[in-house]
C-alpha cells in the first residue's frame, strides 16, 4: 500500500506542547464540577478537536475485571449505547488493557478489531492508551479516523496525558460515589430506631472508622410473631461498599431464617452455608441471641465473635458469658451439625451487652487488656447511659481505627403497676398475653399462676374485643398490679357488652372464674371493667 491518502500532519502544524498546556488548563478549571459522564463527554469532544480525529471512546473495566465495557463514545455513540463488551486480552482495546501499553492500528480489519460498531462505521485508523490510576487499570481510551491516518509519537503522548487525567478523575469520582453509597447503605441497614419491646429497654451505638475505612459492622434488634426478641451483632471482614453489601445480605438472611423459627445455631449454620455458596471468599463474625417471649432466658450462638457481657443488679458485677465460639461464617467447610446454642438466664434488671472488636481493640495492646477494661466499665445501668459511658471511657476522643458497634439490652425491673392499651381487635390478644407473661415472669410468679392468669385475662380481653364495640373501633386496657402477694388484673373497655351469640360465652366466664380467686364484672354506661384477683403461690411480687 502506498502512503498516499494517509494523513500525516506537518510538524509546524502541531505545536503539541502548546496544545497540551491549553488542554490541561481547560481540564483543570472548567470541569471540576461535572459528573463522571459529562466530564468524559467534554474531554472526548475536546480531544476530537485537538487531535483532529473523528471518534473518541472510553471503555471501563467491569466488576469481574474480565471485560471492557464502552461507557462513553463520541462520533460512534452506538458503541456506548449498545454497551459493547470487549474481553481483556482480545482485539484492539482488549490488548491495550492486558499489555497496559499504547497501541496503534493504521488499517482496521476484522482480525484486529472486535467491536462490530467500529467495523461497521468504517473506521480506518485507531490509536488507544490504557487508563491507569494508582497502578490499577481502570479502562482504555481510544480515538479513530475514517480516513487512513498515521499517528505520531507526539499524538500518543498527548492521548496518554489526557488518559492519565481521565483515569484520575474517574477514580476520584468513583471513590466519592462509592463512599456515598456505603454511607447510604449503612444508614439503611442499621435500624433507624430500635423497636419498642414491652419489658425490655435497649440502646445501641454505631461509629464508623475514621478516614478511608467504612466497614461491615452492624447490629439488629427485632421481634418475632411468637414473642421472641432477637438481637444480632456482626462484623464482615473488609471495608468499603463490598463489605457493606455482604453485611446487608447477611442481615436480611438472618431475619428470614429467624422468622422461620430456627434456633440460633441453626440460623448461623444456614447463614454460613449461604455465604459460602453466594459470596465465596467473604468472612464474617456474628453473635446472635434470642430472648424467649417471657424475656427470662436468652439463647446465644457465636460465629467467632467476641463474648457478650452480662451484668446483674445484685452486687452490680459483670461477667463474660461462657459461650463456645464456633467458627466464623464463610471460612470452615460446611458445619451444619457442629454449631452450638448456649442458654443463660437474665434476671430482672439484668443487662446483656454485645459489641464489635473496635470497642476494645487498641494498637500494641493484648486483647485481654481490652476485655478487662470493658468488664470493669460495665455495670447494670440504663442501656442508654451504659452505652454513653462505654463510648466515653473506652473510645474517648480517639479517632476510631475500626468500626464500633455496641448494643445493650436490659430486662426491666418488676413494677407494682403494669398497664397496656391495645386496639379492640383479635390481633391484640397475643400481645396482651405476651405482656402478661412478661409482667408475671418479672414478678417471679409460678408457671401455674402465670398460665391461669393468662387464660383468665385472655378471656376477659377476648370478651371486650368481641362484645364491647360492635362494628365501632375502640381500645382495651389491661392493668396488672401486685400487692400483698396477690395479682390483681383489671380489663377495661368503654363499650357495652352485647349478648353472647355462639354459645361459648358461658365457657369464657367459667374459665375466668376457675382461673382466679375472685371475679367481678362491673358494667356501667361508661363501659365494662373486669377485675380478677389471684393469690400468688410463689414469687416475691414487688
Amino acid at each position, binding site marked *: 500500500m502506498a502512503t498516499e491518502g494517509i494523513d500525516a500532519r506537518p510538524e509546524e502544524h502541531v505545536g503539541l506542547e502548546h496544545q497540551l498546556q491549553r488542554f490541561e488548563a481547560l481540564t483543570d478549571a472548567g470541569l471540576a464540577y461535572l459528573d463522571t459522564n459529562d466530564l468524559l463527554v467534554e474531554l472526548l469532544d475536546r480531544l476530537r478537536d485537538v487531535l483532529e480525529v473523528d471518534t473518541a471512546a472510553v471503555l471501563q473495566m467491569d466488576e469481574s475485571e474480565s471485560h471492557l465495557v464502552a461507557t462513553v463514545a463520541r462520533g460512534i455513540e452506538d458503541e456506548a449505547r449498545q454497551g459493547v463488551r470487549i474481553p481483556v486480552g482480545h482485539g484492539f482495546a482488549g490488548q491495550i488493557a492486558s499489555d497496559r501499553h499504547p497501541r496503534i492500528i493504521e488499517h482496521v480489519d476484522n482480525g484486529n478489531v472486535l467491536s462490530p460498531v467500529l467495523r461497521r462505521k468504517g473506521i480506518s485508523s485507531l490509536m488507544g492508551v490504557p487508563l491507569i490510576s494508582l497502578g490499577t487499570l481502570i479502562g482504555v481510551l481510544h480515538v479513530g479516523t475514517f480516513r487512513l491516518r498515521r499517528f505520531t509519537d507526539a499524538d500518543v503522548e498527548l492521548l496518554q496525558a489526557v488518559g492519565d487525567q481521565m483515569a484520575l478523575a474517574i477514580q476520584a469520582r468513583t471513590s466519592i460515589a462509592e463512599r456515598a453509597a456505603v454511607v447510604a447503605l449503612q444508614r439503611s441497614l442499621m435500624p433507624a430506631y430500635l423497636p419498642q419491646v414491652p419489658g425490655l429497654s435497649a440502646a445501641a451505638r454505631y461509629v464508623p472508622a475514621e478516614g478511608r475505612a467504612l466497614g461491615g459492622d452492624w447490629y439488629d434488634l427485632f421481634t418475632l410473631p411468637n414473642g421472641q426478641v432477637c438481637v444480632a451483632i456482626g462484623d464482615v471482614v473488609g471495608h468499603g461498599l463490598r463489605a457493606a453489601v455482604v453485611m446487608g445480605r447477611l442481615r436480611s438472611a438472618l431475619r428470614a431464617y429467624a422468622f422461620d423459627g430456627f434456633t440460633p445455631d441453626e440460623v448461623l449454620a444456614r447463614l454460613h452455608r449461604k455465604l459460602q455458596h453466594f459470596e465465596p471468599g467473604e468472612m464474617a463474625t456474628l453473635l446472635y441471641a434470642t430472648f424467649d417471649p417471657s424475656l427470662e432466658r436468652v439463647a446465644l450462638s457465636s460465629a467467632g465473635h467476641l463474648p457478650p457481657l452480662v451484668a446483674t443488679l445484685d452486687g452490680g458485677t459483670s461477667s463474660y458469658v461462657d459461650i463456645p465460639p464456633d467458627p466464623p461464617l464463610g471460612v470452615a467447610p460446611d458445619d451444619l451439625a457442629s454449631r452450638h446454642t448456649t442458654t443463660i438466664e437474665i434476671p430482672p434488671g439484668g443487662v446483656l451487652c454485645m459489641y464489635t472488636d473496635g470497642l476494645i481493640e487498641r494498637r500494641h495492646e493484648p486483647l485481654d487488656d481490652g476485655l478487662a477494661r470493658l468488664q470493669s466499665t460495665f455495670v447494670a445501668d440504663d442501656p442508654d447511659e451504659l452505652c454513653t459511658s462505654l463510648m466515653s471511657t473506652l473510645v474517648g476522643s480517639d479517632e476510631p481505627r475500626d468500626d464500633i458497634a455496641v448494643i445493650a439490652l436490659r430486662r426491666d425491673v418488676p413494677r407494682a403497676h403494669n398497664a397496656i392499651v391495645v386496639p379492640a381487635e383479635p*390481633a391484640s*390478644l*397475643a400481645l396482651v398475653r405476651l405482656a402478661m407473661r412478661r409482667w408475671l415472669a418479672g414478678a417471679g410468679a409460678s408457671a401455674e399462676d402465670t*398460665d391461669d392468669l393468662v387464660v383468665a385475662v385472655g*378471656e376477659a380481653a377476648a370478651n371486650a374485643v*368481641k362484645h364491647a364495640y360492635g362494628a365501632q373501633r375502640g381500645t382495651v386496657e389491661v392493668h396488672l398490679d401486685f400487692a400483698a402477694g396477690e395479682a390483681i388484673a383489671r380489663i377495661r373497655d368503654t363499650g357495652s357488652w352485647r349478648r353472647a351469640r355462639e354459645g*361459648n360465652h358461658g365457657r369464657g366466664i367459667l374459665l375466668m372464674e376457675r382461673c382466679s380467686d375472685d371475679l367481678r364484672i362491673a358494667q356501667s354506661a361508661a363501659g365494662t371493667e373486669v377485675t380478677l384477683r389471684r393469690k400468688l403461690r410463689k414469687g416475691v411480687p414487688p
Partner: protein
Amino acid sequence: MTDATLTLETHDNDIRIGLAGEVDMANADKIQQQMASAITNDTMSVTVDVADLRYIDSTGLRVLASFAARLRSIDIEFTLIAPATSPAGRVIELTGLNV
C-alpha cells in the same frame, strides 16, 4: 398476631392433626377450616393432638367441640389428645369440656 402451626399425618384412612403454638379468636376460624379441609370422604378416624399448644381460649375450645360433634355426626371416630399437664389439658379440665 396469634401464631399456630398445624401438622397432618395420614395413615390409610386415619388422620392425625397436631396443633402447636396458640389458638384464640384471631386464628380459630382459620384452624377450623384447615382441620375441616383435611377430612376426606374416606376418612375413618381423626386424632387431634393439642399437647404442644401453648395457649387455647374458649373460642378455640368451641372450634374443637364443634369439629368433634360434626365428625361424630358423620360417623367418623374422634380422639382428642390433651395431657392434663399441658396448657390445653388444663383449660379443658377447668371447663369440663367433653369432646
